[in-house]
């Protein structure tokens, strides 16, 4: 790894215990042809984890944590996931309470349906995916503030209101009795939308941690540290299998 990478031990960010805890953790990054895996894999290496690119269900067998990235529209993404035989394995993974991080479209796929194209998605978080409301420009491209609804270990070392990088037009809208509980952060672009969710070990961020400089790498390091701790801190009692 290049010595110039930010956010690692002794780097410009200073101490980073999260990265040390997750060192060597095997993170499967799902490749279903919907996004830029180079930077996510590189970001994971930069914080000491071991990324593998998962093109099918078998790659999940040896993984400690799972990341579903992705950009673009939901329906084609779900079709590609289905074609790769990954829909049921991803649902099972999440149901077992294993460490999961959805990034951008990967977060949106956690919801039930999308207004964009009517796609039926993973449905593990109640709610739909809608256009960012009252947005002066769309897509929402650039750095915007992520305001935390509550403290969470995914954001250790990152203050509420930090600037992180977004590229999207749609965002998840949690619904039902637990909507507030799963909402971890919000961001405003015209209207306000949910920019991070957390439900036990199931985490999702609408911004791109792999493109968000030092703070973005911290998010990845925090995710990996949570996974290394075995159960993704914040799992409701009895909810997770704590499998690692």
């Amino acid at each position, binding site marked *: 790894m290049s010595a110039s990478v930010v956010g690692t031990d002794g780097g410009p960010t200073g101490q980073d215990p999260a990265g040390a805890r997750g060192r060597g953790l095997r993170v499967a990054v799902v490749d279903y042809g919907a996004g830029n895996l180079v930077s996510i894999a590189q970001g994971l290496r930069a914080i000491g984890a071991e990324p593998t690119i998962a093109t099918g269900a078998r790659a999940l067998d040896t993984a400690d944590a799972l990341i579903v990235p992705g*950009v673009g529209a939901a329906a084609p993404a779900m079709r590609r996931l289905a074609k790769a035989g990954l829909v049921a394995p991803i649902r099972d993974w999440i149901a077992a309470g294993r460490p999961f991080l959805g990034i951008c479209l990967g977060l949106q796929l956690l919801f039930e349906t999308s207004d964009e194209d009517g796609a039926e998605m993973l449905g593990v978080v109640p709610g739909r995916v809608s256009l960012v409301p009252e947005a002066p*420009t769309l897509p929402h491209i650039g*750095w915007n503030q992520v305001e935390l609804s509550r403290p969470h270990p995914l954001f250790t070392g990152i203050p509420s209101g930090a600037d992180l*990088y977004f590229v999207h037009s749609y965002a998840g809208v949690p619904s039902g009795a637990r909507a507030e509980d799963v909402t971890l952060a919000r961001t405003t672009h015209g209207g306000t939308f949910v920019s991070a969710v957390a439900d036990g070990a199931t985490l999702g961020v609408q911004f791109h941690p*792999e493109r968000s400089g*030092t703070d973005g790498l911290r998010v990845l390091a925090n995710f990996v540290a949570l996974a290394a701790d075995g159960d993704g801190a914040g799992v409701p009692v009895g909810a997770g299998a704590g499998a690692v």
Partner: protein
Amino acid sequence: MLRRRVIPCLDVANGRVVKGTRFVDLVDEGDPAELAERYARDGADEIVFLDISAAPEGRATLLDVVTRTAQRSFVPLTVGGGVRTPREFRDVLRAGADKVSLNTAAVADPTLVTRCAQRFGRQAVVVAIDARRREGGTAGWDVLVRGGRDLTGLEAVAWAERVVALGAGELLVTSMDRDGTRSGYDTELLAAITARVDVPVIASGGASGPDDFVAAVRDGGADAVLAASIFHRRIHSVADVKAAMAEAGLPVRLPRADSNAA
């Protein structure tokens, strides 16, 4: 609130950053990945690579540059220059780019914009518009292609509206009148386009100092401002420009006191 972005642009030929008056008198200005990293450290919100290699083998070199940069700098990358097909578009994304900019090929075949937007999402599709003010009392701006050499007959504001309808998620608007002149961005051109489209617009061409960046946003309505030589030649740093924009009351991303916001 969404920050206004400052974007250094690197013209790349055969794996090196070059700067000349567009395509002539090219001067080697360094390794693209190294320069990109320096800019990222300095607060660049995004990096644009513009491939100006004439030869096909330049493309492979460019993809290598993109990957090397993505391995060192965790900021967004946009790549433009010579992409003609969805397949080439995909190759650039797979190399590590977040967005791909289409220019000449979009004019030649506007369906390319739609096909790429459907396949990769409109957020990945930037259309670059090189515009020159019409002369002789005619209103509007001509769209030029092939690096500003060929007239298309298209008018820039109308073309901007059309490519957005076709699926462009962002526009990179370069004033060919101002490019390389250091006489400021063409804020009239920018204002004419930003009034008509609801996608983000990146201003390009003519930066001489921080005041020009402020004007591109305030008078032109630009969401992002791009420049090349003033950064390469260290006439102004990205940090200086952002400080001036903040001073003018524009929302920009500044490093936190406790962090090196790469």
